[in-house]
């Protein structure tokens, strides 16, 4: 009975509400262009933040403070004008990441992650321009033109479609959580038909290719994806 009372007391004291920040209103502003640099008109733009669990502990047992989230918090939304510009009032939640969801009338879409330090001290998130990225089917083939029997250790790093682009410190970078997951690591020239790699990536973006022979000689190459289908060949 005593334990039950000890359990009930914190439950009564701790609010079980999913909370946003009190007494705050933020402002979001950006301009969105397509992959050709033209303004994206009438695109729907939403800013969300992940609605996380809050945990608290009683007698060493972890309990969740909030129920399982159905969806993230919608902080604000708007529609781009004829110049691709959009701005709106936002609610605010002190969070690690924010997400800008963009959906064009042509069903193009993009999710841009935003680091919390991108908000100025004055609760303003101003991203000068966001470029929409499309998905490309990429073929990258290693072709043995020299007749070598050397086996190469190949690493391909690219902007995979399940990765978020991250806006941090006023620049766009790939989400660091994706850097190790989107690499292709394989051996080439073990057999005659092991040189072809096919994958999907966002464009415009850049592919980093690194291959190294058994002696440790290393070659780095970069390829820019600018079209829905791209094919690159590397002769060795």
């Amino acid at each position: 009975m005593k334990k039950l009372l000890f359990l009930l007391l914190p439950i009564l004291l701790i609010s079980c509400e999913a909370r946003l920040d009190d007494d705050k209103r933020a402002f979001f502003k950006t301009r969105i262009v397509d992959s050709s640099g033209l303004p994206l008109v009438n695109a729907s733009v939403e800013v969300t933040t992940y609605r996380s669990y809050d945990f608290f502990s009683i007698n060493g047992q972890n309990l969740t403070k909030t129920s399982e989230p159905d969806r993230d918090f919608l902080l604000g939304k708007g529609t781009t004008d004829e110049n691709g510009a959009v701005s709106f009032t936002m609610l605010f939640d002190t969070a690690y990441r924010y997400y800008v969801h963009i959906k064009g009338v042509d069903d193009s879409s993009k999710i841009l992650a935003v680091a919390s330090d991108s908000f100025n001290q004055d609760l303003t998130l101003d991203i000068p321009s966001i470029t929409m990225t499309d998905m490309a089917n990429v073929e990258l083939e290693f072709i043995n033109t020299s007749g070598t029997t050397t086996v190469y250790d190949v690493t391909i790093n690219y902007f995979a479609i399940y990765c978020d682009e991250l806006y941090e410190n006023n620049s766009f970078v790939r989400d660091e959580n994706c850097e190790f997951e989107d690499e292709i690591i394989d051996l080439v020239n073990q057999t005659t038909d092991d040189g072809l790699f096919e994958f999907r990536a966002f464009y415009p973006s850049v592919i980093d290719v690194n291959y190294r022979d058994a002696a440790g000689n290393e070659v780095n190459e970069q390829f820019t994806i600018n079209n829905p289908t791209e094919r690159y060949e590397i002769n060795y």
Partner: protein
Amino acid sequence: MRLITRKILIIATVLSGYYSYSQENTTEKSHSLPDRVFAVDFYLQRALPSGDNFIGNGLSDGTGYGIRMQFDIYKNIYVGGALSQDFFSVKNTDVIGEFNRATKFNAYLFLGYDYQLNDDWNITADLGYGYSQNKNRQSTEQGGGKFRDTGNVFRITTSIEYNLSSATSIYLSPSYESISYNINSAPALGDTFDKGKFINLALGIRFNVRDYRNVPLKDADNQELIDLQNRDRDDLSISEKRKLYFLKKKEARRLRRERRRSK
């Protein structure tokens, strides 16, 4: 238009207070109802957000309820406290933010003047100041989040009251609220989130406790009442004091009834 409404309310409050004070000092009381010493109100109200701010442009008209308690402290001047809660839906998320309903809670103290026009009618006016909080909620589609906007409320409340009996009355109460919010907003949003204004119209019931110690007994035909009245109050037992109170109340009711009949 909103400025005019505000001015009218302020002028009405000042004039009613001045008129009441003048009447009190220049004429004899034309009523037989004893003075009120305590009152408690329960009311329902329609709250109309107004002004060019996030409240006026972002919230729909709301409905609420409240409770007030007031004590006369000197002549007809009273002080009191009030609690109220009003419910609003959001009409424009572009202005106010991405949520769909708000519950406004006020807790404030007030100082006012109570003037009895006659046995049937009273008017009151008071100024209040206190705490205000909007508890805002998102819909499930918006993520189900909750947060608060807090501030301080300044409130002007007037009422016109009809006495159903010496203990009970009903009233109509127009009021005006100006709330200074503590919202930290981005500079691009200007001063939209600094203030919110409401015009309210309440319909309520008031339960009164009156001062029967000064009820005239000249016309009383109740010998027991006269006997108790003539005795030293300090010599009365608790049950006799209680009896005296209710006899006076009854006498006041009788006098009031007679006065009505003679009109």
